[in-house]
Each structure stands twice: as structure tokens, then as C-alpha cells.
């Protein structure tokens, strides 16, 4: 296999692997830009993945599966919202609780309902989001470079992959070009300013948290009914945390988020490709070392080696007027 071929294949799998990260990272972005820390991305994704797996298996419809994922994920988001916005509780504790609940409940219910060790039934392709081939992908294949990129990397993904990549510019546009975005950015920086401008802080934050729920629903559905053909226990495998790391890495900015998620997805793809292959000099690199890279990079970033990453000022701080 020549180098170009390897690169194309790795990039193609990086695209797939970065999709759940992208959705979850954007979910975190909406939430944290509004001032609600979201460590429960992982749990919402998992809940969504499970719901999608179940509903798609029962109804045979991928779309209904996606809808179920979104609803369940919003439900979890609202729990987090109620704890952290209405009750002004500790947002980390609430997020961690959601992760535990999601991980426990999905395993328990999966086993109780389907009895396959926490897996949902294997889905036929008709109940999944399958790869679609973009127009002219075949004839383009023969055009050098651009053709290969188009037909091998850009074409041939499921609808959800394209949705993820469209969500990035869309989020940028919402954040910087719409009234909602202006208010969202403001409420995460200084909720007092938003309140005195006659805007409800709680309602702004709830909306942000709900959007985070929707996006985590997409991420979960992607995992269980697009990338795989069914849910399996703890299938998010820490992607929610990597997405959180990507969010910090991206300095809470949507276009950076694309870069960060793609980088982390690419590292993942490389790790998979290198499994069992020995490199010159260093020999075989343990998978764990590669998997830890996103976190290591984020720590290096936080330590101030790659510019500065400053969170929204009111991130994680409940809004109270009375001292």
C-alpha cells in the first residue's frame, strides 16, 4: 500500500471517528457558552445511543431512532438544567451523576429488555443511517488528488456525518450573526448584564442546555445506528470527555472545534491503524499511549504552551442575585 493510499484511508476513518466528537463538542459549546458546565456529555450521548438502538430495532426506522435519541438526551439535559439553573446546584456533581445514571441504566435496561449482555439487537441496514454516495463520486475517482479526496473522503458517509460538518458553520453563524447567539455569548460572560437588559437568564440557559441535549442525541444515534448496527454497553467509551477536552482545546470557538475534533479523530484513526505495527526505532506503540494523546495535548494547552484558553467568565457559576 502506498503512502497516499494509507493517508486517504486514515483520513477517511478520521472523518468518521470525529463525528461523535463534533456533535458532543458543539453540545458542550452551547451549554458552556451559556454558563452551564457540561461534564455529562458522555452520559447524554450514551443515553441517546441506547434509545436510538432500541427504537430503531423495534420500529425498524432510523429516523425514529434518531428522534428517540434526541428526546432521551434532552430529558437528561433538562435534569442537568433543573439542577444547575433552577436549583443552582453544583454543575459538576450533576453532570457526573448523569454519566453514572446513563451508564447504569442503559446496561440494566438493555439486559432486561433484550437479554444480550447489554447489547440491543443487530440492526438491518434499513434501520440504520447508511453510507450515501455523492453524485459523480465514481467518475471523479480518476481525477488525480481532488478526485480521490472527493470520492474517497468526502463521499460515502452517512447523512449524520454531513450533518455534523454542517453544524459547525451553522453554529458559528448562530453565535456571531444572530440575536440568540449574541445573548448566548453574553449570558455565559455576565448574566447580570443579560438580566438587566431585560432578558431571562434562566430561559437563555435552558435553551442552550436543550440544544446541547439535541446535539448529544445526534452523537449517540450516530454511534449506535450509523457507525455500528446496534447499541452495546458503554459504547461511548469516553468520547464525551474527549469532546470536552476538544472544547477546551478549541477555546470554546466553533471553527476551532472543527480542528480540535478532527485532530483527535485523526489521532484515534492513526492509533487504530498502528495497532500491532512496529515503528522504526520506538518499536510497537501501545494503543493506550495514542488514546491518551488528546488528553495530554489538552493538558499541555492548559499549561499555557499553545496560546491561552480562557473559558466563558460565568462558566459553571449559578446565577444568583441575593448573596
Amino acid at each position: 500500500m502506498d503512502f497516499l493510499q494509507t493517508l486517504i484511508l486514515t483520513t477517511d476513518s478520521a472523518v468518521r471517528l470525529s463525528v461523535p466528537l463534533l456533535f458532543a463538542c458543539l453540545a458542550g459549546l452551547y451549554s458552556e457558552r451559556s454558563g452551564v458546565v457540561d461534564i455529562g456529555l458522555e452520559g447524554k450521548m450514551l443515553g441517546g445511543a441506547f434509545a436510538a438502538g432500541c427504537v430503531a430495532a423495534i420500529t425498524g426506522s432510523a429516523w425514529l431512532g434518531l428522534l428517540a435519541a434526541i428526546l432521551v438526551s434532552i430529558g437528561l439535559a433538562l435534569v442537568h438544567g433543573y439542577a444547575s439553573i433552577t436549583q443552582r446546584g453544583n454543575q459538576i456533581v450533576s453532570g457526573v451523576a448523569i454519566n453514572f445514571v446513563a451508564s447504569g441504566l442503559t446496561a440494566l435496561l438493555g439486559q432486561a429488555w433484550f437479554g444480550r449482555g447489554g447489547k440491543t439487537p443487530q440492526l438491518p441496514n434499513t434501520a440504520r443511517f447508511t453510507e450515501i454516495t455523492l453524485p459523480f463520486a465514481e467518475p471523479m475517482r480518476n481525477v488525480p488528488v481532488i478526485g480521490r479526496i472527493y470520492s474517497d473522503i468526502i463521499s460515502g458517509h452517512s447523512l449524520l456525518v454531513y450533518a455534523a460538518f454542517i453544524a459547525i458553520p451553522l453554529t458559528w453563524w448562530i453565535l456571531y450573526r444572530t440575536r440568540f447567539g449574541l445573548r448566548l455569548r453574553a449570558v455565559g460572560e455576565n448574566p447580570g448584564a443579560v438580566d438587566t437588559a431585560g432578558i431571562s437568564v434562566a430561559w437563555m440557559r435552558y435553551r442552550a442546555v436543550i440544544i446541547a441535549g439535541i446535539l448529544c442525541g445526534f452523537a449517540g444515534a450516530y454511534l449506535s445506528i450509523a457507525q455500528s448496527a446496534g447499541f452495546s454497553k458503554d459504547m461511548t467509551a469516553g468520547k464525551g470527555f474527549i469532546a470536552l477536552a476538544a472544547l477546551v482545546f478549541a477555546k470554546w470557538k466553533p471553527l476551532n472545534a472543527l480542528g480540535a475534533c478532527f485532530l483527535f479523530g485523526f489521532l484515534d484513526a492513526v492509533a487504530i491503524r498502528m495497532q500491532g505495527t512496529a515503528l522504526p526505532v520506538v518499536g510497537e506503540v501501545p494503543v493506550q499511549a495514542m488514546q491518551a494523546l488528546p488528553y495530554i495535548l489538552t493538558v499541555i494547552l492548559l499549561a499555557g504552551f499553545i496560546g491561552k484558553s480562557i473559558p466563558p467568565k460565568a462558566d459553571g457559576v449559578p446565577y444568583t442575585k441575593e448573596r
Partner: protein
Amino acid sequence: MRGGWNRREGLINGDFILHLDEQATARGGDGSGANGSGTGQSADVPAIRLVGIEKRFGPVFANRNIDLTVAKGSIHGIIGENGAGKSTLMSILYGFYQADSGDIYVNGKRQKIPDSQKAIAIGIGMVHQHFMLVENFSVLENVVLGVEGGALLGKGMDKARSELKRLAEEYDLRIDPEAIVEELPVGLQQRVEILKALYRGADILILDEPTGVLTPAEADHLFRILGQLRDQGKTILLITHKLREIMAITDRVSVMRRGEMVGSVHTAETSVEQLAEMMVGRHVLLNVEKTESKPGDEILSVEHLTVIDKRGVKRVKDVSFSVHAGEIVGIAGVSGNGQSELMEAVAGMITASNGTVRINGEAVDVTSKADALERRHRGMAHVPEDRHRTGLVTKFPARENMILGYQDQKKYGQGTFLDLGAILKETEEFMVDFDVRPPDPNLKAANFSGGNQQKLVLAREMERNPDILIVGQPTRGVDIGAIEFIHKRLIEMRDAGKAILLVSVELDEIRSLSDRILVMFDGTIVGERPAGASEQELGLMMAGIADTSGVADKAATPSADTVGAE
């Protein structure tokens, strides 16, 4: 007029009548519309009438049975000591807080104001004491927030830009709409707040302690604008605790004390002395008595101190000065000009990037570590500016607060365990000596009033008998009675031959306590003046208009780069 402010007994009756006739106008001394600047019939209806407003924060009564009438087209002052409840009352009017009970009438109509949206809708605008700005937003974004004019920003922003330009010209409130707020000096940030209110078409404008962050010249400019707004028929509510400002600009003034409205008077018929008496409830001495200072040895010397903050902004620029035994050196300046950072670097709360500090002639390491404890061992005590944030652990009882920073002294116990009895006994002594009320060492710091909290901190630091005391804003948020007490103790300490470095944004305080006055502007000391310096002169220096005297100043850094007196 006397009936005006001696109204408290009358209130009981007034309350009674009120329930019978909500539109009662002939109440007590604050009859509305008495002030002649309004025209036509509408002048009879007051712009604002508050009846029986009450608000509690936990155990604290911030507002108790407040009545207030504000005539249309007037500038109405509200004066009271820190903590009197002025901000709370105004925030209720602006819908930021909800009153526990009471009624609000705006232009004669009874209104429920559940949030600021409603307040804005009925024409009320407010410039908050602590600005409500999104710091990393541009001026323009801050102005349009909440009134964007459509779901998409593009068009609304363009409209706002031109509207802002018009307002800026009309009211002489020039500002760059694209500037990022956190990069603006405080005076201009306040301008953004005013523009926000005007942009929303406010008819009734509340300004909460607007001059606290302004130089005297900037304050004059603000007052001119307020006068102009009044002449256009707008109603202005001006909150302050500075008597002179009230006398200079208001038509009427209402006085608050400890959450209650003491009364309202026509400004033209009152005097500074009478207002002070109403504020405090008794006759007050506005001046501190002190003798000539007798400076001794140099205790603290600061040379070429430079402090750069986390963002990389130079806060203190090559500052040098010294403080001798037996003198109080005051550092004056509008807040935010580097005084806080200077004080924190000297006291060991933050590191400096450059410079030397000597205590009793011996150098302290100021650049590589910030070690407040070491400075305490060397005879420096520090009363930080913000007692809630850095002066006290408000959840701790008084006795634990009393040993903070000194907890390793032998008398409080050896080895692992604290000697609780010794601590308790000493705290009791200190509390009596500083007249802290109630003198209960087991009471949580949070449960003392502001003045008593401040006395706790002062007692902790001053009872150690330090060679040098660094004290920041010693009387911020403290009632006049406690101010007198604190000032007296500081003078006593000076007379006992101690060195004191005083940092305060209250020019009056600096002028009445200091033996020498250093003025800071934009991170540098722009000059030194002796005790008797006039307010005008100091005010000019605070605005960065450097030394006009031409006398070579030992303390002054050679900085004449007057960055426009914006």
C-alpha cells in the same frame, strides 16, 4: 421643610390614609410637583411614586417601609451611607430585585415590575453601581443586547451604529462603537452604560453612585449631561453618598438611613451639615483633628516597582516612594489606576515583575514570590481593600478571623493544637478595644455589619503593633460613626510613631488623614503634595494632568505622558 424630614412619626398616620386613597398626593412633606421645573398638567403627576416598599435579604432589612415621590423633569438625589439600602431600592424600581411588599407608581400608573424588561418597557433606565457590561463585547454589542431589532444582527447593528453616533453627538458622549469594553477606562465604561439606557429610550434615568469611578472633572462633565437631560424633560434619580454632589446638581434630595427613608427636602433649602445629620442621625464632625507629623526613620521604601498583571497589562509602572515612622502617606487616585496592584505587590499578595521593597532597610523579595507571611514576620501589617474577598473568611467566627495570618504565633498554641482559650480571650480583648459590636467572638464574621467587620480586620492587624501598616479603603461601606472611630485610631497609631501607607479612592479621606499625598494615574505616581493640598489640584492630578507646579518631585516618576484625560 422640617416637616419634610421629620416625617417618621407622621408616617404611621400616613400609612393609614394610604390604604383609603391610593392617589393621595398631599402626603407628609414630600408633596409632588412642588418643584417648578416641569410644565403643563403632567407635571402634577409624579414620575415615580413608591409606597411602603420593603425588602429583606435574609435577616437584613435592606428597605423598610420606603415612600418616595420623584417629580417629572427633575434631578432627584438619594443620599445615604453605604449599606443604607439605596442600591436595593433602585434595583427594585428597575425590576432587578422584587420588593417583598409595597407599590410602585410610574407616571401615576400602578406598575408591577417583575423584571428589567418591564422596567425598560415603561421607560426606566439604570446605570448600575457595578457595571452590567459584557466585558469582552464591543461597545456596540453591549448597547444592542436585549434590543437587537430582529432575530438577525446585521441590520439592527447598522441602525444602532448610526443611532449611537447621534446620541454621542447630542450628549457629548463620544465613544468608539467597535472598542472592546474591557479595554476601556472605567470612565468610558460608564459612558457605555449611560448610552445603553439612552438607546433604550429611557425617560427616567437612575444613576447609582456614578461618580465613584470618575475624576472630579469627569464628574462635572457627567453633571452637565444630566442637566441637559433634565432640560429635555427627563427625570433623573442620582444616588450618591457624597454630599457635595447632591448640593451641586439636584433639585430635591431624599435621605436614607439603615434601610429607611428619613425624609425629602428641597436642595435649595438645605445644607451639607443638615444632610449629614440626617444621614447619620446625629451631629457629625466632618473633619479629623490631628497635629503636625514628626517623621522619623524610613520604614518602608519602594523603588522602581513595576507590576504586570495576568493579561500582560502593566498596572504599576516604575513607582518609587517611601514611608517614614510617624507619618501617614496617602495614595490618591481614581479606582483602577494601579493603586490596588501597588498595594498588593508591597503586601505580598502578588509578585512584581521588577523593583525593590525594603522594610526597615532590609530588602524583601518581591519579584520571585509573593509571601505575605514573611512580611508579617518583618513587622508589616496589611488591611486589604476588600474585606469580604481577602480580609475575612466570612464563614468563620470572629475568633478564627482574629488570628488569620498570625495563627503560627506561639501564644496561640504550640505544635499541632491551637490554644482555643487563649484565642478566645485575646479576641474578646481586641473586640472591646476596637468597639466591635456585638463583642461576641463566636459570631460568624458574615453576621457583623460592614463597619464592625472592618473593625475586626483593623483590630487584627493594628493590635499586632506593626512597624508599618498598609491599609486599603479603610472605611469603604462603613457608617460615619465607625469612620470617625477608624480615623481616630489611625491617627493614634501614627502618633505612636508607626508608619502608615493609606490607599483610598475617597479624596476626602486622603486629604484629612495624610501627611503626604501621592497621586496615582495610569500606574504611575504623577506627583506628591503636602497635607494641605486643595481638592481641585489633586483632582487635576488624578485626571493625569501632570504636575503643574514645576517643582521637581522626588517621588514623582518622570512621567508626563498624559494619556488624554478621557
